[in-house]
């Protein structure tokens, strides 16, 4: 009975709740409709950006489901499986995609910076051309800020400072450029100029020697070196008479500080007064040597104060004092030794001594200009020497410079030719081959055929005729040239076993 009542109650209850629910529902329907009608209008929302836009440089690859093993029976997949790639991926995973990514982006950034710096440099160059040095300097400085390891920007700024007579800044800039690129000839030259004008003649001459090492035929550098040597010579003489203590044999810069130190040590006990004048100490140290000659100075400071005006000249003395005992000739030797140094390393010892002798001869020859023949001989030797050390040119300009330099020395020229890879000829000359050079080349090929055994004359001939606009050059070949050519072709045929087709082809090309 109780149970039945309970069930009845529950059913009634349920019906009741349902009824209320349904009336609720009806009310809700009406309300919803009203609400919906009021809903028109703008709905402004502050939405976060599209995912792909934010995630652009997220490292993780999106389109990958986690790695699944390829089941051993899935042969098709295994066939497609790239083992190398998988190994690479594992290796990469160790590095981590993040670092890889950042590296990449860093490289891109660097590239961008470089571009910007290049742009600044161009602007700077334009300013230099307009003689607006300050603007140019600021441009280069910006370029340097962007890219700190490019020697060109430093060297260019150095030039600007040089032009502005800011010699110290010029020197430091050039030094920086040299540090970055130890083969940067212009930087050496600029530093030499700066140092020369600063009075550091020895340093300047070292720089110029460096230049000549890199570019043996740099006339400007040679001339500058001459003038510096002359200046050094005079200075040296001047200084020689003053300090008796300076050892005469000393050319070695290593010993340079010693004479400086000695007087200092002596001076200190001699002059206790010096300690009182601490601000002037430096000055005195700088001019120590001169003081030893002129003084036991006990002058009151105000009397001495006039002298420092000349102290700049005095600072140079230690340098010039080191200048050679045998001024000019000795320097020559250094220069040529440099030449030797530049030479290839397989020069054996005996060769070297021989060269050194020649060099000595040369030095003498220079000093006694009447023996012209000797000089020319030596020059020829020197040239030959140079040729041995010659590297094949990369451009027609380099080639022409060397070619002109070797004028009158056909043997050397032939050597020079022989270092050139015949297949490179078209790229070297581009379209700058001239008819007189061509005929010279042909003549030398003909004259020294045996030097071209290795690379074969025919290869050279082929190389030459592939130079741009060769057909035009061929038209202007003189009859003698053609005679030379026919001889050469004959040589090709007999000595080098060139095929008939090849010969015929060359004949056509050279219009014989």
């Amino acid at each position, binding site marked *: 009975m109780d149970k039945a009542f309970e069930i009845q109650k529950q059913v009634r209850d349920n019906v009741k*709740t349902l009824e209320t629910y349904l009336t609720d*529902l009806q009310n809700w329907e009406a309300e919803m409709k009203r609400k919906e009608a009021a809903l028109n209008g703008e709905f402004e929302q502050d*939405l976060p950006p*599209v*995912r792909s836009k934010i995630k652009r440089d997220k490292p*993780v690859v999106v389109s990958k*489901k*986690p790695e699944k093993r390829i089941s051993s029976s899935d042969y*098709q*997949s295994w066939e497609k499986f790239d083992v190398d790639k998988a190994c690479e991926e594992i290796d990469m995973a160790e590095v981590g995609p993040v670092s890889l990514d950042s590296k990449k982006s860093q490289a891109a950034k660097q590239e961008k910076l470089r571009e910007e710096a290049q742009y600044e440099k161009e602007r700077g160059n334009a300013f230099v051309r307009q003689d607006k040095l300050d603007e140019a300097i600021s441009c280069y400085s910006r370029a340097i800020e962007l890219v700190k390891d490019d020697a060109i920007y430093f060297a260019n700024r150095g030039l600007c400072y040089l032009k502005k007579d800011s010699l110290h800044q010029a020197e430091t800039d050039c030094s920086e450029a040299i540090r970055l690129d130890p083969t940067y000839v212009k930087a050496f030259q600029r530093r030499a100029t700066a140092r020369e004008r600063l009075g550091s003649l020895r340093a300047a001459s070292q720089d110029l020697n460096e230049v000549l090492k890199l570019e043996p035929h740099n006339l400007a550098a040679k001339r500058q070196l001459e003038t510096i040597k002359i200046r050094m010579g005079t200075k040296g003489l001047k200084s020689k008479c003053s300090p008796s203590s300076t050892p005469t044999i000393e050319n070695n810069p290593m010993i340079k500080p010693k004479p400086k130190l000695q007087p200092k040590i002596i001076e200190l006990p001699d002059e206790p007064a010096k300690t009182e004048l601490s601000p002037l100490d430096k000055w005195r140290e700088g001019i120590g040597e001169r003081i030893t000659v002129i003084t036991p100075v006990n002058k009151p400071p105000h009397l001495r104060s006039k002298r420092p005006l000349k102290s700049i000249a005095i600072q140079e003395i230690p340098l010039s004092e080191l200048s050679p005992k045998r001024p000019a000739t000795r320097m020559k030797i250094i220069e040529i030794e440099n030449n030797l140094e530049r030479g290839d390393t397989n020069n054996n010892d005996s060769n070297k001594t021989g060269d050194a002798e020649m060099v000595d001869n040369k030095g003498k020859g220079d000093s006694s200009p009447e023996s012209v023949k000797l000089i020319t001989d030596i020059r020829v030797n020197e040239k030959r020497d140079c040729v041995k050390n010659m590297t094949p040119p990369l451009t027609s300009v380099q080639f022409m410079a060397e070619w002109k330099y070797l004028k009158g020395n056909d043997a050397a020229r032939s050597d020079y030719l022989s270092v050139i890879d015949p297949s490179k000829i078209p790229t070297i000359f581009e379209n700058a081959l001239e008819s007189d050079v061509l005929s010279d080349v042909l003549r030398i090929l003909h004259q020294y055929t045996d030097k071209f055994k290795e690379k074969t004359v025919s290869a050279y001939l082929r190389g030459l005729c592939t130079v741009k606009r060769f057909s035009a050059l061929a038209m202007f070949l003189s009859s003698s040239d053609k005679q030379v050519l026919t001889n050469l072709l004959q040589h090709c045929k007999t000595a080098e076993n060139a095929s008939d087709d090849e010969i015929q082809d060359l004949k056509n090309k050279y219009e014989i």
Partner: protein
Amino acid sequence: MEDLETPQIITHIENNLNHSLFDCKWVPCSAKFVVIGSLPKGSGTIELFEINSGEAKKIKEIERPNSFKCGTFGASNDVERKLATGDFKGTLEIWDLEKSCQVYITKEHTDIINSIDGMGGNTMNCGAPEIVTGSRDGTVKVWDPRQRGKPVANMQPMKGETKRDCWTVAFGNSFSDTERIVMAGYDNGDLKMFDLRTMSLRWECNLKNGVCSVEFDRKDIPMNKIVATTLEGKFHVFDVRTQNPRKGFAQVLDNSSKSGTIWVARHLPQNRDLFVTCAGNGQVSLWKYQYPEQRVRTDDKGVASGVPGKLQRLQRMVISSQPINALDWNRDHTGLAIATAYDQCIRVLITTKLNLH
């Protein structure tokens, strides 16, 4: 007297339509709903119904050459209320129902889009509006309606791997502008959790049977629970608050009902611990997840792992002779739901006394 608190599930309105139905969704902030299906001739329909004093009245119909499979309002705000649909050919479309025209169309999937979910349309500070689609072509793609043509994320099997049919997708964990997680269930029983913030796979497991439906209890909170339903009448509830690096998530499995495939599980918007499952025998079951006393346990090494709770069935009711393939709770009225079934009927269901649980 706990019987007095037992909810009742009542079919309020039953409407027979003469074609297959695949999905149904309430139009937000209204007493209207859309039904997505296909006509016998193979064309797709979107029908808009309105509840009017105990009757569902059709007020609009859109017909398209390709059958629609699924739809969502999740990526749209409550004013525009744009419906995103996926169809049998793999096309994703977004509809302006007022004007009956598409505002977005893209066909990046090569096969049927089985499942769609949307997020971020109307809740503030829970991320960009995004749509996720899962397709038979094996891929899961995430879309932003503001970016045309291309998905913003694409989860696909590696080359050489067999492509599994993706049956279900769901958003969740979207409690900030950056955090968001996509769950995807596959026909081979794989259940995968993709983290969209880090664009990586956060977790995966295999449920042995094909995963028919997966849903977070809430989308816009730090992820709390997932229900994943499978073939063979089983469903899993995962406590996803605590992920153990070794064991993953704590889960509770229910295979008590021999009701065939569980097609869909849907959490009550008003109470996240209640959810309903719709089975292949036309039965809807209302479940309550009971949390354990302690949700987290730390082992001797100090590593936290979750503790599974218990499932309590509150009610069950067979409402259809055929499988119920879709169900949607009304956001604004507790206990109101629509369901579509393969008997070509659309039903408005009322569940009472839900507020007592």
